[in-house]
């Protein structure tokens, strides 16, 4: 064998063995990190206990994400061994647990230095004199018992599984610390409700990291509000695991302040909703004027929208109104297990029922008026913590020309008029889903201005007499329906802009586009085909956004189904139609090139036309 061949063989062996080593080390790394490595006992025994522990603690946070990323690189036997790690509650290093005093919770914690709660820091922030991890775990158990008893006394059905598992460690999401998690992985079926699931909770082990502001909220206070929040999620899973996310957060955050009124962390979130800044939202909202009460997620405002529940409780003189919504949800079946149940009709049904006999529109309107009038009736000591809502417009020069606003479902907008040396008449034009109110605030007293006789304007006759520094007139407009894009225009010069009824039908949030492009679908054989998707996107972005485009689409949808039907039944026609659609799709994919080509063709036609006419002219002259 020549030298070259030997070198190749050696290289091949080197590559193979090194790859094997890498594979083995990765498998060993994860097995060891998760405390599942069973071989090499001698080597394991020689390892420092604390260093093993430190690795294992990390595994419960960032390491699980790494494991998911590297999953396909692991050997199948390793995958089998680690499979449970991805599914089950966290595996703590050197674990220990205590049963809470009431017996309803099992509090898990780690006893390694890196994984255990930082007792010294807890003692510093709280003034407690905790001497053992078990003492802190027992205190956490007591907090959860307090929460449990509160919910039980308020008529809630407790979640399946007892004692309920709570894991204290360092849970993260995207490598950032989080307060807590509630998950329904590996659920135990519940006999109580058809779609109920068991769950487990993970909470930060001590809340001493700076992100939790331990100098403002002590570790005990952070644990209290997190327990109140997460255990309501557990209750939610215990009613119906297909709950809609935004109302779950609204409810859990509301209860933080109902159960632990002295902590007041929930008020910190309010600004994101009441001082809503669409520019700060990623991705930017479709409608930039206001945030919907029922939006799935909009700059984390779902944590702030808890204030609606306070309004509901005050309006109906009982906090049970919120529980009734969750009880209604318990009997609702999901349309599809991958999609959560839209909470809007559930809330509507609960409010419609006795003893509330109301509607979501009525209660939402009461709520948004209260945001300005501040006529809250409970938690009065914390009234100053509720920010007044932001004004989307401040006017101090008059007249104000017509200004049109488009509002998403269940949303609101406020506009301020600063007193000036004249009377004020605000003229409105609105679609039926909009409710409006003009407030006058003078010497700190807020009054509602009645509508003029015509029903389309408000007049503030003493506007000139009001103090421009302390007084104001404020216009509130709100979409109190479950339909997006209701419009309202207002002015102080009597003019109005045209407002158009929304064309989009009701829905619970999310979901896009309407039907498919029938002919293209028939030609390509599937609604999901990429080319059909491109045409659909073109329709949604360029045709449905203007009147001529909408007319074209409406006509197309009327005429195309029978044609599509014929195409779908003949294979040879599909090829032909695909070919005919090709220029259209190319135009959609490459609009600049298509325009260039169009101009080229137009130029060529023009030239041909000119030549043709000249030729005819010459023929005529010759004749």
């Amino acid at each position, binding site marked *: 064998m020549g030298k070259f061949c030997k070198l190749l063989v050696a290289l091949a062996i080197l590559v193979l063995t090194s790859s094997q080593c890498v594979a083995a080390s990765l498998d060993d790394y994860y097995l060891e990190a998760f405390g599942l490595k069973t071989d090499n006992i001698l080597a394991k025994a020689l390892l420092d206990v604390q260093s093993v522990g430190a690795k294992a603690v990390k595994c419960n946070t960032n390491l699980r994400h790494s494991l998911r990323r590297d999953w396909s690189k692991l050997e199948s036997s390793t995958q089998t061994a680690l*499979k449970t790690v991805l599914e089950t509650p966290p595996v703590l290093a050197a674990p220990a647990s205590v049963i809470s005093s009431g017996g309803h919770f099992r509090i898990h914690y780690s006893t390694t230095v890196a994984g255990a709660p930082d007792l010294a820091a807890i003692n510093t922030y709280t003034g407690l004199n905790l001497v053992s991890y078990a003492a802190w775990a027992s205190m956490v158990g007591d907090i959860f018992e307090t929460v449990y008893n509160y919910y039980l006394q308020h008529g809630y059905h407790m979640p399946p599984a007892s004692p309920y598992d709570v894991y204290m460690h360092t849970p993260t999401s995207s490598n950032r610390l989080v307060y807590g998690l509630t998950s329904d992985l590996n659920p135990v079926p519940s006999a109580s409700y058809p779609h109920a699931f068991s769950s487990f909770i993970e909470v930060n082990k001590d809340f001493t990291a700076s992100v939790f502001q331990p100098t403002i909220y002590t570790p005990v206070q952070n644990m209290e509000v997190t327990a109140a929040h997460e255990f309501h999620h557990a209750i939610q899973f215990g009613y119906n695991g297909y709950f809609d996310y935004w109302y779950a957060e609204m409810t859990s955050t509301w209860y933080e302040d109902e159960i632990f009124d002295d902590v007041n962390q929930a008020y910190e979130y309010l600004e994101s909703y009441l001082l809503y800044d669409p520019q700060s939202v990623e991705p930017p909202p479709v409608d930039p004027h206001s945030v919907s009460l029922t939006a799935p997620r909009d700059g984390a405002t779902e944590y702030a929208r808890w204030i609606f529940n306070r309004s509901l409780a005050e309006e109906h003189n009982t906090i049970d109104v919120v529980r009734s919504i969750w009880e209604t949800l318990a009997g609702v079946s999901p349309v599809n297990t991958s999609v959560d149940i839209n909470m809007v009709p559930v809330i509507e049904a609960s409010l419609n029922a006795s003893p509330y006999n109301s509607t979501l529109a009525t209660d939402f309107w009461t709520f948004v008026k209260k945001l300005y009038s501040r006529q809250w009736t409970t938690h009065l000591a914390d009234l100053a913590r509720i920010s007044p809502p932001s004004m989307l417009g401040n006017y101090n020069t008059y007249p104000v020309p017509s200004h049109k606003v488009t509002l998403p479902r269940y949303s609101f907008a406020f506009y301020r008029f600063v007193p000036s040396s004249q009377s004020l008449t605000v003229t409105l034009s609105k679609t039926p889903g909009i409710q409006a109110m003009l407030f006058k605030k003078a010497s700190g007293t807020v009054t509602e201005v009645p509508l003029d006789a015509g029903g389309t304007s408000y007049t503030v006759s003493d506007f000139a007499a009001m103090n421009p520094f302390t007084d104001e007139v404020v216009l509130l407009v709100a979409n109190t329906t479950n339909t997006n894009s209701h419009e309202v225009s207002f002015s102080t010069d009597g003019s109005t802009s045209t407002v158009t009824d929304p064309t989009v039908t009701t829905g619970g949030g999310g979901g896009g586009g309407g039907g498919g492009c029938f002919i293209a679908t028939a030609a390509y054989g599937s609604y999901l085909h990429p080319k059909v998707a491109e045409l659909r996107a073109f329709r949604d972005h360029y045709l449905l956004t203007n009147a001529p485009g909408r007319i074209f689409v409406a006509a197309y949808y009327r005429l195309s189904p029978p044609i599509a039907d014929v195409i779908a039944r003949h294979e040879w026609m599909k090829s032909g139609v695909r070919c005919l659609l090709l220029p259209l799709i190319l135009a959609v994919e490459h609009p600049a090139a298509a325009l260039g080509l169009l101009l080229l063709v137009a130029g060529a036609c023009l030239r041909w036309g000119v030549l043709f006419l000249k030729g005819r002219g010459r023929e005529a002259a010759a004749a």
Partner: protein
Amino acid sequence: MSSGLRFCLVALTVALTCLTAHAFAKKPAELWSFFYFDGTAFVAGRPAPMTPFVALRDGFLPVVETRDERIREVKMPEGTGALVGICYVQSHGGKLQAAGGVDPVPMLPVQVLSGDKAVAAVQSDSNGFFIVNLAPGTYRISGNNRFTEVTVVKGKVIFAPLRVGKRMVD
């Protein structure tokens, strides 16, 4: 030019166009359609590099792969259809920062039920995907005590995203 001849020319042009399109449609590169899971549904298109995608082709079983060159053709048995699904856990929330997202669940047992009778049992792969070849009919797909109902059609592939858990992140 007589109208008959003109008609023949038009017909010939249309026929040639159809034939060309048909031939174009048979090019290997165009044989497969690509889809990926976007967190809530399977959508047409290509995901980020090295992210698993689903390749579909009429008459063949679906393929879940990360690279085109590894796609292997396996004929779909006569008179059957197929479903391709993914088991995933959905996360919502984030008080301190947005924490929503999807985590695939690998190696999860998935059962296919017709009525109450189990007709197939598979396990999600290392990326959470699973593929099942079935006779036409309506089935319940079950994983981790969750179900989704699908209707399998002869010669077609359907998607079955299966959410097997939910996580509230705060």
